[in-house]
């Protein structure tokens, strides 16, 4: 127990007000994720899985309860402090890739470094190393429009890796890809996990979730299932 959990949530709740109604998107969730885990977060739309993902990604703060990131309480930080946390500890992968248009793969990958303490002379080498890690060493100067969907998602994954984060959060990363490309991307995640990366993946597709080692199932704002694959 020398190393703290990468993520630990303690009874987190999140309320959204819709007019006069208050809707509880999360109704007290306790989850701990250790370093090196590969977790799939599942649930239907409105189950609270996206809200949970926003919380552990430090994109939003809970109404109630506590979130510890690497042992540090991040539940009540302001926008600027959360931005620093995301920059240092978290790498994001989105369904729509969210790459900057008309910008080279290299510059896209280097984007998080712009907001970091990393000295500028290291940006290019680090971005290049990241792209090589996802198998795009030959495509450094291509713009997103010159890349296939799978390649674009690899650039996005390289971007998530470039700040050497504690946790990679992928929100429906295969949602915009065909089946074959989806499994290539999942293979890449698996490979990264084998190399020691902690990965949390939000998906509603069971075949995709099957690649992960652990599954969290959300329903109506509550965690209803938490089990290890193969130990079902």
């Amino acid at each position, binding site marked *: 127990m020398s190393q703290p959990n990468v993520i630990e949530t303690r009874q987190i709740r999140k309320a959204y007000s819709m007019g006069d109604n208050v809707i509880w998107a999360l109704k007290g969730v306790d989850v701990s994720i250790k370093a090196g885990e590969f977790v799939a977060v599942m649930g239907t739309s409105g189950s609270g899985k996206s809200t949970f993902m*926003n919380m552990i*990604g430090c*994109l*939003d703060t809970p109404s109630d309860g506590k979130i510890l990131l690497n042992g540090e309480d991040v539940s009540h930080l302001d*926008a*600027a402090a959360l*931005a*620093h946390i*995301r*920059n*240092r500890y978290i790498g*994001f992968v*989105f369904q*729509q890739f*969210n790459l*900057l*248009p*008309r*910008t080279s793969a290299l*510059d896209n990958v280097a*984007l*998080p470094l*712009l*907001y*970091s303490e990393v000295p*500028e002379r290291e940006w290019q080498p680090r971005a290049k190393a990241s792209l090589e890690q996802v198998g795009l060493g030959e495509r450094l100067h291509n713009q997103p429009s010159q890349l296939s969907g799978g390649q674009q998602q690899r650039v996005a994954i390289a*971007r998530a890796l470039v*700040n050497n984060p504690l946790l990679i959060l992928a929100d429906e990363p295969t949602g915009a890809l065909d089946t074959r490309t989806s499994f290539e991307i999942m293979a890449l995640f698996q490979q990264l996990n084998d190399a020691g990366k902690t990965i949390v993946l939000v998906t509603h597709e069971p075949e995709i979730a099957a690649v992960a080692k652990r599954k969290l199932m959300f329903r109506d704002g509550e965690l209803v299932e938490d089990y290890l694959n193969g130990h079902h």
Partner: protein
Amino acid sequence: MGITKLFRAAMIALRVNLMRSALTMLGIIIGVAAVIIMVAIGAGAQQQVDAQIEGLGGNIFILSGSSRRMGGVTTGAGSVQSLQQEHADYLQTQLPDIEAAAPMLSNSAQVIYGNLNWSTTVEGMDNHYLTARNWVIANGRELSPQESNAGGKVAIIGATISKELFGESDPLGQTIRVNNFNVNVIGTLKSKGQDSRGRDQDDVILMPIKTVRTRLAGVSNSNPTRVQSIYLKIYDGADMQALETDIADLMRTRMKVAPTAEDPFMLRNLSEMVATRAETTRIFNSLLAAVASVSLVVGGIGIMNIMLVSVTERTREIGLRMAVGATPSHILLQFLVEAVVLCGLGGAIGMLLALVVVVVLDQFVGTPAVMQPTIALISIGFSALIGVFFGYYPALKASKLQPIDALRYE
């Protein structure tokens, strides 16, 4: 994040939307160019007026014969030749504020040199006239006392005459024919250029007043010492308004005018006329600059408009930047710097455009225009300020976005 990184990021973002950036800048380019060009034209006009004031050589009164009424028709000033040679000397001795009192009698004449001829005005004068009109001898000499008193056949010629009759050769010592008699050129005048009405002041020949009176204007027995006008140069610091009254009173007494009669002369304050013109020019300049400034402000509003569109269009980009670690102040600065770079760059291009237009106007069109470095710098600084002012609201709007909302924005 350092300021150089910020500028580089802004340049990249602007290059990505090159067409839109260029069109947005156009507003600022036109605004800045308009301000600088208008001020340059104003400065050119101002400089012309200043040169006219300089040409006057200080405070000047012109005393001339009054107009004459004949059956309801009023002829021009000076058509009654009531002024006499001695009036100049009299005023000079009576009023110590007068630096020079110079009588003048002019007549048109045809001048001939070799096979060239030129129609011009001959002004009969004495050496005081050079002082009073601020004429400077470029080459040669003034009139000698003997030439002045005896009406010597000598001439000091203006730059235009020198150019038209002698071209590049030296006119000094040459003999020119004026109407029907020969005169010796003893001096040339330094060029004064155009006067306030656009008349060429260098198209003139100066001769002793006596020579003009006897040989060109024709002596009438009833009025043997008449002069057309008397130029009175006043020392700096004298009270011009008090002097105007004094001169008029002295002249009325001297000419024995009945108390109820009108002045038989006209007294004009030339400096005042030019001063009025200078004031008009100044007001005109302010107006030009004000109108041009409006276009600069309109350009600024264009910037705000485009920045607002840009923020909306790039909402997902803002969300992404926030997700990977941009703080609200990073986003604020990014959009602010983009606006300032747009405006600053637009200002610089506008200044270059203005420089070209000013040079073309001044050199090729003939509209005097003077580029003022301070105004150019102020315009660029001001346009950058417009960038901050009109860029702030869109930038603030961008920085207030929530990352999750921005990422989800379609």
